[in-house]
């Protein structure tokens, strides 16, 4: 099997394997790029985004001090509520800690009012634009499990993009009739990008 043949097949099969990620990043980027439009579209429905699903009073839980580690607090709340998925917490105010928990499909927040020992749990209404941007923004190796596996695939997509460039450039170079227009496209793209870097 010749090198050029392997080169072409790598370009093709890698693209086919990573097609779902490619489409995900493409579609979700539309939402990121036109966020205001999607927000206005949803606000026109006049439906609340967060829906209260539970409330616990006299909810006793050790509260970390100002600047303390909120992770154990978040883990305890998430366990008590029987939620799965990624989670985190932040101090909304001196008297309130918010815990958030999310999967690709669902997002929940639990607001803990320290003085009142009250926990209010809310689910976010499902929105396709949030679903897409949530997947787009997922990554990193902090959480372990399947999340790490997803992060590995994000790296694979990065490696795939580099391979597409390299294999694509080789394929282009082996098509002499496309060189002039190809050079024009390549150089004008590089110059446009350099102009943006200079001016932006």
């Amino acid at each position, binding site marked *: 099997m010749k090198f050029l043949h392997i080169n072409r*097949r790598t370009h093709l099969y890698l693209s086919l394997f*990573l097609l779902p990620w490619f489409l*995900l990043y493409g579609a979700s980027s539309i939402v990121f*790029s036109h966020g205001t439009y999607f927000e206005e579209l949803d606000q026109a429905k006049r439906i609340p985004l967060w829906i209260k699903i539970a409330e616990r009073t006299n909810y006793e839980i050790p509260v970390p001090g100002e600047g303390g580690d909120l992770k154990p607090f978040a883990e305890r709340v998430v366990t008590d509520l029987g939620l799965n998925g990624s989670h985190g917490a932040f101090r909304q105010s001196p008297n309130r800690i918010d815990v958030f928990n999310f999967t690709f499909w669902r997002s929940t927040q639990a607001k803990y009012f320290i003085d009142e020992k009250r926990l209010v749990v809310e689910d976010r209404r499902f929105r396709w634009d949030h679903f897409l941007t949530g997947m787009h923004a997922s*990554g990193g190796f902090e959480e372990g499990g399947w999340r790490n596996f997803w992060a590995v695939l994000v790296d694979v997509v*990065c490696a795939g*993009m580099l391979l597409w460039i390299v294999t694509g450039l080789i394929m282009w170079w082996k098509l002499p009739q*496309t060189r002039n227009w190809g050079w024009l496209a390549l150089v004008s793209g590089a110059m446009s990008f350099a102009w943006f*870097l200079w001016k*932006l």
Partner: protein
Amino acid sequence: MRSVLSKLLRRTHLYIALFLTPWVLMYTASTFVMNHKSHAHGSAPPPRWETLSDKPYDGAFPSSANEHDMARQILASVDMDGAHQVSKRGDGKIVIQRFAAVQPLRLTYEPVSKRLLIERQLPNTSAFLERMHRRRGYQHPYALEDTWAFSVDFFIAGVIFWALSGLWLWWEMKVTRTFGALALAGGIALFASFLAVL
């Protein structure tokens, strides 16, 4: 007719890819950096700034001016008008974050002493890549920002076009259909399993 369409798709697929190569490289590098953020940044130290100038600002503001009006006036008067964010701090200082691809600027106006401090962020590759990755949208009233936003939209259209035209071109090559279908099905199955568990 079919061969003309096929050639047109091939050439468009190729030339758009060549034109957008810098964008692909930037999004690839920035995605990799963001995916390894905790490793790349450690405890994420705050950005470092260098002072460009710290001197009196004698401009007068209309009595009705809010912090946004003040920011526009300050930026214009120091010849730095452009996309920015402004906030009014608790101590009354007006802090303007002037966006820039490589080295963003920070202008801090102190209304009591009427001093204007101008700082520039020191170069940082990771921060630069992340800034470029996140820069998009038409929310700023500047033609330059809209032009960049358009280039991002063009990139998105390119990504979707590559995917769809790639499928078409693959299907035309009968000899690759079996392995191609396996690769596609494998990718879809893996993606679906992530959807099921994450």
